[in-house]
């Protein structure tokens, strides 16, 4: 049975976007930076600025993924009318990589957003495990291990009156 969707209480009211005059919002104006290169020329000096860099490294160290930080940066740029969403999304990988570089340079631990992003040429763990098992199979045939006879520890016969009788052969 399909459950009814939960009401979106914090969603904008229908027609809310029409409450402001069209063109009053910065993102409704022509963007300030039209190309990826222009947008990067805007972002990179800001990121590498010593004042902002310190805060950025602190945020990165708290464990917030770089993808989230980059997304927040470019969303802010779109809201300010600096560039379009298209340019923002195109710029994001460069921002993420730049922040990773700065993080490595500063020697801090950070999260990129997914482990899959790093070392794309590196084979996956499952693939390595498969290859290793194949190599081991080719190397030597499987040796059957002799069953180790477990030594049965014989319990000392209890001499108490209330102790359980131990039957032989059980």
């Amino acid at each position, binding site marked *: 049975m399909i459950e009814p969707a939960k009401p979106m209480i914090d969603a904008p009211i229908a027609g809310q976007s029409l409450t402001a005059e069209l063109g009053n919002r910065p993102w409704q104006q022509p963007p300030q930076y039209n190309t*990826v290169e222009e947008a990067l020329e805007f972002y990179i000096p800001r990121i590498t600025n010593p004042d902002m860099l310190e805060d950025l490294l602190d945020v990165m160290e708290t464990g917030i993924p770089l*993808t*989230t930080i980059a997304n927040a940066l470019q969303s802010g740029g779109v809201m300010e009318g600096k560039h379009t969403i298209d340019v923002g999304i*195109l710029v994001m990988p*460069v921002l993420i990589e730049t922040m990773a*570089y700065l993080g490595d340079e500063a020697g801090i631990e950070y999260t990129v*957003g997914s482990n899959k992003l790093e070392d794309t040429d590196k084979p996956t763990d499952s693939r390595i495990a498969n290859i290793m098992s194949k190599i081991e199979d080719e190397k030597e045939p499987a040796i059957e291990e002799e069953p180790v006879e477990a030594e049965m520890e014989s319990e000392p016969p209890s001499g108490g009156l209330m102790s359980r009788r131990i039957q032989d052969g059980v």
Partner: protein
Amino acid sequence: MYNVGYQAMKNLKLPKAQEPKKDTNSMGLLARNMSNNNAPKKEQDVKQRVANYVAQIRKARMELNND
């Protein structure tokens, strides 16, 4: 969760390092060596340009980590 940054990085196809092509020496005495690099470079796609930027920064980062 739909992570735009992750999607953008995942869909990025990084260029592979290309070995420099050697010039083919012609056998004639007066013939000049024609290099293959004279061909005008095509204007790259935006995604390719971004991938190149990412590759350059990543290379620098790897060199930084290996030092």
